[in-house]
């Protein structure tokens, strides 16, 4: 299992254990973390799984994909350098302890 901490827009933190191979979006939804919607189920269609990767983790989660950039154009909240679609971040042991911040709205 891989530990992930979600920091909501109001600063409150939720830590959950995700399965290796699952995406950050799936982990949030499976653990009832508010603030990630994931309306398209991870098909990179909805941009309602937008998150900001914590600066300390940005080198480990990798770059965003070309299409991801384009889909983020449709995100409801401000897009920053650290913005990712959380359905495109797959968990593995190297991400154990991952911290992501959630935007204040998803649509």
């Amino acid at each position, binding site marked *: 299992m891989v530990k992930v901490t979600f920091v909501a827009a109001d600063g409150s933190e939720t830590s959950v254990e995700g399965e290796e191979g*699952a995406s950050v979006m*799936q982990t949030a*939804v*499976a*653990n*009832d973390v508010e603030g990630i919607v994931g*309306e*398209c*189920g*991870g*098909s*990179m*269609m909805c*941009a309602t799984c937008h998150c900001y990767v914590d600066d300390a983790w940005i080198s480990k989660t990798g770059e965003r994909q070309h*299409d991801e*950039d*384009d*889909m983020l*154009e*449709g995100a409801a909240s401000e897009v920053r350098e650290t913005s990712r679609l959380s359905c495109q971040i797959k968990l593995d042991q190297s991400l154990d302890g991952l911290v992501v911040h959630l935007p204040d709205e998803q*649509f």
Partner: protein
Amino acid sequence: MESGPIVIVGAGQGGLQVAASLRQAGYEGELTLIGNEPGLPYQRPPLSKAYMQDGNPGALKLRAAEFYDKQQIRYLPETSVTAIDRDDGRIATTSGELDFGHLILATGASNLRPPIPGLDRTLDLRTLADADKLRERATGDRRFAVIGGGFIGLEFAAVASKFGLDVVVAEAAPRLMARAVSPQMSELFLKKHRDLGSTVLLGDPVSAIDDRGIALVGGTHLEADEILLAAGVRPNTVLAEAAGLDCANGVTVDAQLLTSDPRISALGDCACFPDSRSGLRIRLESVQAATDHARHIAARLTGKQPDPYNALPWFWSDQADYKLQIAGLAQPDDRAEAVDEHVVFRFDAEDRLTAVETVNNARVHMRTRKLLAGGETVGPDTARDLLS
């Protein structure tokens, strides 16, 4: 603000969303979500895509089990609503009766069953149970025939050919996905499926199904061990009709998604609503329509007086390495202009952009979504800016 109780019939994409949105919008009254399928509410799109390949039901769940308790949503699985008593504000279900202050019909759609002899031999792909059965059969050297070259049939064909199965797709219309996309897109996907190794037959309806496969009107017989019926759907309106609600191609609703009874709303696949752009009454089978309808109804029931419903339709379909995305809604005879091999613009008779179809081009898709959602009229020149 609706004082409740609010009862939702159908626990699919839209039913679950309206329950979630009602709580988010501050509705604190009684909330019951009733579904006739077992297990927790799940998403259908992956059934013909990722789930067909990985078989992981965990990834389908719309919300975790704790969500229902925490949000105080009473969820009744494996329960069918059998009648609506509009005078008394009460419904009958297979496990008893329930009162409602407001009722939301989110009953979805069922597979269309054309009058073809031998249809009882076919498999469906609408529910998780259907998908499991199909996955079980989609192994080894079984030969598959798919009746219908629409989204679901083609998504399945793409996965099945990836498994190395022998696939024939029989489509009655002269082109693929004819109701939803331009001729140019139909052509692009025809080539794709033929390159993947599927046999695709067009313009020749299935006339009969027998032990050895399917027969076409034109006289061809195709050998198949398994047959998937994917010839479209029809809205689930039986309940609404029996209760005397207006129905025509779905449950008729107004621009606030209210049925002909002001205590009953309807959404998603089962609802026929006025399209704010074309002025036509339409019914959409998409996650977008189900969820945007749900949010609209939740806003209305919690006392916000929303503008008439006007969310922009959008849709996607994954077939092998082609991701088709559609922003907007074209009428079948809207002009189609292929601006590059993977981007088609649709324009109505007044040269207004109605939709853009793209393959593997999220940038143009997303830009179109933003542009059209604004509600302005977009002519050919402005449309071209989408490409830059």
